[in-house]
């Protein structure tokens, strides 16, 4: 069996406590346990992470690029949706 037969997995890495997991990339692996190990070797070797998730790529439902306009356009011109009028207190990071 070559890696071409192995399913694709998406890798999410949390770089620090308090931050959320961020998409880091993808890889091939025969199962979840191996995917997690491979993710460790591929994406966290330069101390990028404290936690890793792997998700089968096939399990991800994505929005279609064709629907971009109806999905995302309307949000652009409504500044009141953005909490930009608050002052961020000192000492609050990752906001």
């Amino acid at each position, binding site marked *: 069996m*070559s*890696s071409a037969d192995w399913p694709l997995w998406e890798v999410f890495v949390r770089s620090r406590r308090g931050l959320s997991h961020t998409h880091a990339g993808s*890889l*091939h692996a025969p199962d979840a*346990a*191996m995917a997690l*190990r*491979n993710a460790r*070797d591929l994406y966290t070797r330069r101390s990028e992470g404290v936690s890793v998730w792997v998700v089968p790529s096939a399990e991800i439902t994505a929005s279609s690029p064709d629907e971009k306009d109806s999905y995302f356009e309307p949000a652009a011109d409504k500044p009141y949706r953005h909490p930009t009028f608050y002052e961020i207190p000192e000492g609050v990071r990752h906001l």
Partner: protein
Amino acid sequence: MNPAPASAALALGDDALVLSHRLGEWAGHAPVLEEELALANIALDLLGQARVLLSLVGDEDELAYLREERAFRNLQLVEQPRGDFAHTIARQLYFSSYQRLLYEELAQGDTAIAELASKAVKEVDYHRDHAEHWTLRLGDGTAESHQRMQQALDALWRYTGEAFEPIEGLAVDWATLRARWTDRITTVLRQATLTLPNGPQSGAWAAGGGRQGVHTEPFGRMLAEMQHLHRSHPGATW
């Protein structure tokens, strides 16, 4: 801190250096890209250990690139050709289990080796985990993977005894180390539906051993490849 015994640093440093080179040979040849990186990562961990250990003895480049075969003190186990993937995993299983137990012991001391060992033990823990994981998969996988894994374990078994010959300057209970190693290997192999090899772990055929500077035939060719660039261009820098 006590000065590290040079002979011990040389033995452990050579193990790490030579195995690192053998693992590096998988670059461009591993069965899958993800595994190639896993092996390269392990190789780089070992190279890092080798640099620290050899620096305790002298100039690391001189020691790595300008020594003759007979001056190397590594185990014959680590100098064997990489073979197929099962061979590499069998060697990783034997060696990383040994290194993991040894470093755990050494980390208790107060020499410069102890400092390296306490840092490296976490790396080696992952190396062992990687090897055990693959041993389970190959042993309990298909008929072919099982057969190849068993063949590799049997072929390398005769190089394992040497690892438990005492190294001068290291305060380690070698008999206990050997017993713990055998325990661990036995458990993993049983889980993987493989059989613990039962041949001799060393013997007269070995004609001495790597720790005495006696090496097997493939090691000379490996050294030639590893050293030729440095020897052709002495003192070259990037």
